């Protein structure tokens, strides 16, 4: 037993030190594990169902209701919720459930567009700032600070006033307000990934700067940014609804969640269902989106 040696300095941090349970029977084990994951999270299951229903309503509203959201039956105006009209009817006798279902398409389109604007513009900004550093970083991030300094709703109101009315413009206005958030997350991620050994290894292997940026940095930084997009989704549903509530959204009689709440406001005293059900739909969608985003965030870690 002469001269035994071997100090492993990183033994404490090496991931293989953690007991990694090898699956006994891979297929069955994985299936059981996945099933258990969902069973332990009933809230998440409910959230997935809610978001799934909203997405289906946006694409195939006929699946949920056969009534026309635009034509009313004057004789049946302002009826309360019943088996025939689950959400009741409005002042023109239109079925509110049909209007809410058909409103999903417009509201979701606006939401998706807004998130896409924020995601693309914000990520590009963050990527540039993080990758180039120095002056560029300073200028871009100070711009982001300015954007963040103005309250989001106020900013989107200002933008939509300048752009004019309509769902697309509302979406762009809301999207612009979320650019700064995306830029910050992306920049932080780019800085983290740029500091990793495998990025240095790629440089040492002789890879060019832009190739390292596109092939290593961007894909590895994208995860948390996409999670942030999911988190933003809920907030954007709310912001889009708020602007359409204020009358910047779709022209009547086209249904949109925010404008449904706004129209019902005049009848609040006599017909509570006109504001309550679209409002609850918005709230359920926002909460469900947040729950899913949180679960996803947990997976990313």
């Amino acid at each position: 037993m002469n001269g035994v040696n071997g100090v492993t300095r990183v033994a404490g941090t090496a991931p293989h030190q953690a007991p990694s349970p090898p699956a006994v029977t891979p297929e069955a084990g994985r299936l059981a594990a996945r099933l258990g994951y969902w069973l332990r999270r009933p809230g998440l299951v409910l959230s997935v169902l809610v978001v799934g229903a909203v997405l289906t309503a946006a694409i195939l509203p006929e699946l949920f209701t056969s009534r026309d959201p635009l034509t009313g039956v004057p004789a049946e105006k302002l009826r309360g919720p019943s088996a025939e009209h689950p959400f009741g009817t409005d002042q023109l006798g239109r079925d509110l459930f049909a209007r809410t279902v058909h409103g999903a398409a417009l509201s979701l389109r606006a939401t998706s567009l807004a998130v896409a604007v924020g995601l693309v513009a914000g990520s590009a900004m963050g990527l540039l700032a993080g990758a180039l550093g120095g002056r560029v970083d300073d200028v871009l991030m100070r711009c982001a600070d300015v954007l963040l300094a103005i309250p989001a709703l106020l900013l989107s109101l200002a933008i939509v006033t300048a752009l004019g009315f309509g769902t697309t413009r509302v979406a762009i206005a809301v999207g612009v307000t979320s650019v700064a958030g995306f830029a910050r997350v992306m920049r932080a991620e780019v800085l983290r990934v740029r500091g990793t050994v495998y990025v240095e290894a790629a440089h040492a292997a002789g890879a060019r700067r832009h190739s390292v940026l596109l092939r290593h940095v961007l894909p590895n930084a994208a995860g948390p940014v996409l999670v942030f997009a999911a988190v933003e989704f809920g907030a954007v549903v709310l912001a889009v609804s708020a602007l359409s509530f204020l009358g910047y959204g779709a022209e009547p009689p086209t249904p949109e969640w925010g404008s449904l709440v706004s129209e019902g406001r005049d009848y609040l005293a006599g017909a509570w269902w006109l504001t309550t059900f679209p409002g609850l739909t918005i709230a359920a969608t926002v909460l469900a989106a947040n729950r899913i985003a949180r679960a996803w965030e947990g997976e990313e870690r």
Partner: protein
Amino acid sequence: MSREATSRAGGTSRGTGGVQPPLLAVRGLRVSYGAAEVVRGVDLTVAPGETVALVGESGSGKSTTAHAVVGLLPRGGRRTAGEVVLAGEDLAAGGERALRARRGSDIGLIPQDPYLALNPVQRVGRQVAESLLIHGLADRAGARERAVELLAQVGFDQPETRARQYPHELSGGMRQRVLIATALAAGPRLLIADEPTSALDVTVQRQVLDHLERLTRDRGTALLLITHDLGVAADRAQRTVVMSRGEVVEAGPTNEVLGGPRHPYTRRLLAAVPSLAGPRLAAPRAARTPDGGPLVVADRLVKDFPLPRSAGGRRLRAVDGVSLTVARGETFALVGESGSGKSTTARIVMRLTAPSSGTVTFDGLDATALTGEPLRRLRRRMQIVYQSPYASLDPRFTVAESIGEPLRAFRVAGRRERARRAAELLERVALPASALRRRPAELSGGQRQRVAIARALALEPDLVVCDEPVSALDVSVQAQILDLLAELQRELGLSYLFISHDLAVVRQIAHRVGVMRDGRLVETGTTERIFDEPHHAYTEELLAAIPGRRTAGQPR
């Protein structure tokens, strides 16, 4: 085998000689994570005043066993069977409350990483005193006094001052001694040390282990020492228990287990340990090419790092006038402890960091001032293998993509040709072609390091810088990788600049060695010369600190 192991383990220890009942007895312990069983029926005893080493490679279940004893399994871990008896009392019977009362008072735990285990916003004295207060063994003033005493006992020369310091003001070795003081505070009868020195340099490791040994001997404390380092076990333990894949494969007095191993696993483990006496791997140097000159010449390299403004705008000199040459086909090793500047020197040679002054000449070409495209072209001729194969491969890249990356960067080959070359390189580093489509997460540490080596070889470089290429790996894997490096050098005539803190590894692989300390190269010479007749006092100190040189397992 397992019956035999049990019988050897079960007998009363010779080291302590007495017939007293064991202080700690673990019987048939089983621990599961989800569906996977990671500890499968472990039996273990520790007598009062005895030191027992629990050795094994990563994933062997040794740490899990220790954590199960104190009931501190990480989330998802569950003890499914077996009992843990401390001084005749089943620890599991009383539940979490009873166990908590024992932790800290009867059982002390010294955690693995001194950099993580102390609360950064609390003064160390208070942290040492904490367990006394928790168990009501002292009042506030008494605990404070006792903490200072304990710090003095673990070898601090100004314990009052140290007690008022914060963890960040102490070095790694000092922090580990603080943790030992904390574990000893309440005077436990059993101390469990989980890799207490793995994060420390050899010379510091020796100090810490010396303190631990003296304190346990003076107080008659039993010590369960978990380690991957057979040398530490050989030096410090009266009995050794070898674990593999969740089972005890061999147990008995240390000199019997390590001197005459019976189980094939123990034999393999021992054979893999790089030794200071065994055969060397370094190939006889390739015949010198007529054009002669050295491949790399580094001349008076200096690297300063600016310190934060709070430190008064001073500079830290990480590398201080280092000159070295690497000949063609030669392995030049830089050894030193952490902070000695060896990695920074290698990074300067690789041109990953610019020197503050000094020059690097690569094959007659001054590489010091190269930037942009010329520097990138130089990268074709020198490649690097990093310490941690867990960090150096992009988790999203398949093995084929990682290995093909240098080829792609230099447009050496088209897509199909790249795939073919990647398969070839994989064969070179002895991995099956089926690994091409896998991602790093699906490979073991050793396999990943092979992939990293294959990537470094892709462009057929002249120089490969190996920055601690085996120190993140288990000994058996370490031996395989060293074999591979030596073989590749023989076949391809590569030059290595080999960075390591491990002298035994360096002795195996290097032709020439440079010893670094505090940024200076204190001694350079052929491997034989450095190991047989070191000139510098520091080199001697380093050599003496290597564990595994004491008479193995002698009762003390």
